[in-house]
């Protein structure tokens, strides 16, 4: 072995391998630098800043757990957390369910189905700023589309964005406008289910409902799971809509967590407090992501793995 190791071919191969190792790192270098400078570094910094009293104009001062103490005694912190949890735990499942229904409809063998697909998807690429302004009109109590539709059905008008009880549901309804993004992803998943599975089920005498429960849902579960994880993370960070439409009102009913954080950081320049808030949110998101991964064993079906 020692002899062959020094033959020219071996040496050439070794230098090629070395070259490949080096190139491997050179090619991921931009990402790696980005990871350390814009992700890992800021994570650590954010953690440290959360133990400081720092208002940008004054020098930073170490304050230990003071920010967290303040945070846990801040009634607005709990309120913003409640508002956000409401939006996440009611909004995300409904949004996903509608996206799933839409994806299944788009999977039908209908003439012109592509046109529907495009129409359902277009709202998803509309800039949030523009769509927020649109929804301001839709929920306008006098002239908005929402109340026009209610009146048309013989129902009374509602004060969507002025009534603290209705503001959060209004935001959730608004989120339904953009089911197109998830719809397209789930549709891709549906298209990936081998037709043979359905044929086999039909031969066995399974109806549509049984096919849905025993084939569609298990086969689609990885896609649903993936969407659920990312949707929960995104929904916890809901910001732009409430910043533009309600500014957190009425009576702080749409004061979502990140809106409150934004105000602390970029309007009051309380960087220590805002960083503590960011870390608390990070831990909450981490916890829920972990719980979802743990629960996923029970309902997510991976083709490659054998269920026990």
């Amino acid at each position, binding site marked *: 072995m020692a002899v062959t190791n020094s033959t020219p071919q071996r040496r050439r191969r070794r230098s090629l391998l070395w070259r*490949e*190792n080096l*190139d*491997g790192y050179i090619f*991921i270098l*931009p*990402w790696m630098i*980005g*990871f350390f*400078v*814009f*992700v890992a*570094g*800021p994570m650590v910094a*954010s953690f440290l*800043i959360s133990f400081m009293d720092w208002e940008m104009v004054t020098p930073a001062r170490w304050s230990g757990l003071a920010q967290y103490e303040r945070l846990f005694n801040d009634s607005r912190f709990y309120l913003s957390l409640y508002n956000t949890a409401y939006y996440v735990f009611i909004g995300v499942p409904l949004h996903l369910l509608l996206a799933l229904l839409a994806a299944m*409809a788009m999977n039908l063998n*209908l003439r012109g189905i592509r046109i*529907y697909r*495009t*129409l*359902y998807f*277009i*709202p998803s*690429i509309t*800039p*949030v*700023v*523009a*769509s927020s*302004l*649109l929804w301001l*009109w839709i929920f306008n109590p*006098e*002239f908005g589309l929402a109340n*026009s539709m209610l009146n048309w059905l013989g129902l009374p008008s509602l004060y969507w964005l002025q009534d603290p009880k209705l503001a959060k549901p209004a935001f959730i309804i608004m989120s339904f406008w953009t089911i197109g993004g998830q719809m*397209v*992803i*789930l549709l*891709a998943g549906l298209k990936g289910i081998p037709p043979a599975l359905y044929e086999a089920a039909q031969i066995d005498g399974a109806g549509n409902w049984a096919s849905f429960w025993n084939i569609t849902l298990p086969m689609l579960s*990885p*896609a649903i*799971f993936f969407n659920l*994880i990312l949707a929960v993370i995104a929904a*916890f*960070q809901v*910001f*732009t809509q409430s*910043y*533009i439409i309600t500014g957190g009102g009425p009576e702080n009913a749409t004061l979502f967590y990140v809106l409150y*954080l*934004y105000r602390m*950081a970029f309007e009051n320049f309380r*960087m220590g407090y805002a*960083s503590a808030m*960011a*870390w608390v*949110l*990070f831990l909450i*998101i981490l916890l829920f992501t972990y719980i979802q991964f743990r629960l996923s064993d029970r309902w997510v079906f991976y083709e490659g793995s054998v269920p026990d």
Partner: protein
Amino acid sequence: MTAGASLEQASPPKVRSEKITQRGRALLGDLLWHLVLSAFAIVLIAPLVWLISTSLKEPSAIFTLPPKWIPDPIRWQNYPEALNAQPFARFFLNTMIITILATLGTVITASMAAYSFARLRFPLRSFWFGLMISTLMLPSIVTLIPTFILFRYLKWIDTFYPLIVPFWFGGSPFFIFLLRQFFLTIPLELDEAARIDGASNYRIYWQIILPLAKPALATVMIFSIINHWNEFILPLIYLHSTDKWTMAIGLQGFSDLYSTQWHWLMAASTVMVLPLIILFFSAQRYYLEGIHMTGLTGR
């Protein structure tokens, strides 16, 4: 009603064979689906129709009951008026510059990382790849404040750099993953043949992988353009003087200043929305294919 007519056509009173009733039932089913799907489509598209129609209305014709969908008379002046009420041409240009430069960085550096993860062997590769994927789940809000402080220290506040430079460092883990998945489908023999001919990894990346990955690169480009065009929180935090604003911020500022001028507001919104819709229509294939090939579906 057409519904009734085709229904009768589909199921004539005298049924001769079972096949005809079956076809009739299928037709009826299709028809019902069309009714349901188009009803929802109308609801989903109505806001956008209202957007465009309001942008062409006289101010007095905007808030009417029931809403009028076709403006009469059509008032084209709304556009020049709205675009001159604020330096909207400037905002448009700024948004273009940021979107193009950030997208360019994303496509170049994300494809480099993806090539490395898909094709090259190096120590700790799966560790770095796993780390990269895990950042997909990192809420961006955690890094926002220190990054702001960093850019403030670099005196980059009120410049375009914070909105462009970070995207020259890998773009986003999502894009790296998407491109890697696509690169894995390119036959390895092509690389090997080139390597035997003495091509370096750089050449293989540039002359073999990238040209073959054009559809995937187009997908990343479209996703990235949409993201940057619509981005709100970054320009809100970093761009302060009006001549630096992007359209998203301009539109928001516009709505604060002219909250009663809906015809202008909607004209400006249309100017922001329309390029995206045109882009989507012209590149729809890449967009939808991209979602397909990422294995984004989790499999």
